[in-house]
């Protein structure tokens, strides 16, 4: 199996998606909302079903629009629940995404059972298939890559335009409010744009890749970065590296190695999105071990272990 044009397009698309995701991902990680992307991959279902019921047919752009609405709704509901019930972002996300998904499922079974609409129309885009329009429709630039580029441009615009507001709102919301920097508005903007990016990317490359690329690169970057700009740059770089390495590994090595260890013959190429996610995880693990070893060799060096504030038992207000 030799490297061909399609492989290049797969890597480019994956890299663009991971960069588009990493930008809001950095701020999600910093404001402890990491589980949001994962929740969104479930929460879009009612949007899809309602869009189907309203439009009366499986017309993908309409379904995607419905999913977008549901995604933004889930993100804002999650944010609002944190305050209304004084719970942490993870719990809030858990409540809203499970409930929304169940709602979608019920709507589908009760009103659209015959239609066999599946969340997969929107959720399980396939990275390998998403770029085939280059081959069959002769487009110069695959639609999936174009969409990822759009997401990247939007998010880059948001981060460039509101860099200092995003930073102060995620670092010290109280001070932000005191100097009039509108932290709540900024946070709602952040979660909405994250939801938008996620759903756009779900449709073209699938939720596995999106969820992994939103959080793993920023988590990796937070181990090493001294500064928010460094963290963003490192996340972008990590996303590109993981995309390239992940695709190379899933063209053979990953599957073959597994099969060989167990005692089977070569297994051939495996799912690329899964491969990139797994590779990102392995890179993160390597980075973590490197960081911990580095800290051990250099006592007195700023430690990777969080300071007192981060170590306190971090429960929400107890009853």
């Amino acid at each position: 199996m030799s490297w061909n044009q399609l492989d290049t397009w797969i890597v480019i698309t994956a890299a663009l998606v991971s960069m588009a995701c990493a930008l809001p991902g950095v701020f999600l990680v910093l404001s402890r909302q990491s589980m949001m992307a994962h929740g969104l991959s479930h929460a879009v279902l009612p949007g899809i079903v309602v869009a189907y019921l309203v439009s009366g047919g499986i017309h993908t752009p309409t379904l995607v629009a419905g999913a977008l609405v549901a995604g933004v709704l889930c993100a804002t509901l999650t944010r609002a629940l944190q305050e209304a019930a004084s719970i942490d972002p993870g719990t809030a996300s858990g409540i809203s995404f499970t409930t929304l998904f169940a709602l979608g499922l019920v709507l589908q079974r009760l009103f659209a059972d015959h239609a066999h609409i599946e969340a997969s129309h929107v959720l399980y885009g396939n990275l390998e298939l998403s770029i085939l329009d280059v081959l069959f429709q002769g487009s110069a630039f695959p639609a999936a890559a174009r969409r990822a580029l759009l997401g990247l441009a939007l998010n880059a615009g948001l981060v460039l335009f509101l860099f200092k507001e995003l930073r102060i709102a995620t670092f010290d919301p109280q001070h932000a409010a005191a100097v009039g920097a509108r932290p709540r508005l900024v946070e709602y903007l952040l979660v909405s744009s994250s939801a938008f990016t996620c759903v756009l990317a779900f449709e073209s490359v699938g939720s596995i890749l999106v969820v992994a690329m939103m959080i793993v690169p920023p988590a990796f970057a937070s181990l090493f970065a001294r500064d928010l700009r460094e963290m963003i740059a490192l996340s972008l770089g990590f996303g590109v590296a993981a995309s390239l390495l992940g695709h190379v590994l899933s063209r053979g090595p990953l599957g073959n190695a597994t099969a060989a260890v167990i005692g089977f013959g070569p297994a051939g190429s495996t799912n690329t999105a899964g491969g990139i996610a797994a590779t990102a995880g392995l890179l993160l693990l390597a980075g973590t071990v490197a960081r911990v070893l580095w800290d051990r060799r250099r006592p007195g060096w700023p430690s990777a272990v969080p300071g007192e504030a981060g170590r306190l038992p971090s429960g929400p207000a107890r009853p």
Partner: protein
Amino acid sequence: MIVRSDSKGGLPPQAEPVVDVRRLTVCYDGKPALWEAGLAVPRGTLTGVIGPNGAGKSTLLKALLGLVPAATGSIELFGKPLKEVRRRIAYVPQRESVDWDYPISARDVVAMGLYGRVGFGRWIGRREKREAEAALARVGMDELADRRIGSLSGGQQQRVFLARALAQGADLYLMDEPFAGIDATTEAVIVDQMRRLRAGGATVVCVHHDLASARSYFDHAVVLNLRVVACGPASEVLGHDVLAECYGDAVGWMIDPGRLEDPHLGCPYGGTQPL
């Protein structure tokens, strides 16, 4: 003379107070954290807000900044409502209120003080960075400007917070427990900077928990225990009777070492003592 909660605290009538709070009640979940508090802070003073834990000291600052809603009462700053004078106020929050693992350098934290001036959607420019460095120099931290804040000591972090407020160039500084858990150098720096601010005509309101040092740091004081117990010049207000009223009888051993022999200390609130 100690002027009590509802009138303007110990002011010569001609001086317009910088902070004028009347009958301020703030509730959390239906429980008052401040109860009909009235106080006035004259211009150009270092005012200490003194009181036991949970007396509403931080709540008072947050209410002044509009971070918690007031149930009743009025707040005027520079004779105007908060909205019109937000730019003229700098806030130094408690150190625990932020995430010190955040990837940000000391300089960038200080530059946050300038956000109000720079405006929504604009970038921090080179001029703001220089101002931030100048503010760091004033607290003796210029050499650590590039350090990640998580790698600084507690006292250094507090000085970064102070520098952020200084960079703002405000007329009123609200500081929440700046002296909690810091080293001697930082304490000296903060006191020195507060005095310089006063000399420059600014007003400082500072939440403080240590009675022993309060009299030497501040020239004006507000003694708080849900309500305002007393408000006025520090030398008059920080007397034994006011503090006894504020802390209950437990204050004896806090301000007067001679009372350590007192047999009643076993039960600081002495249930049998006459009211």
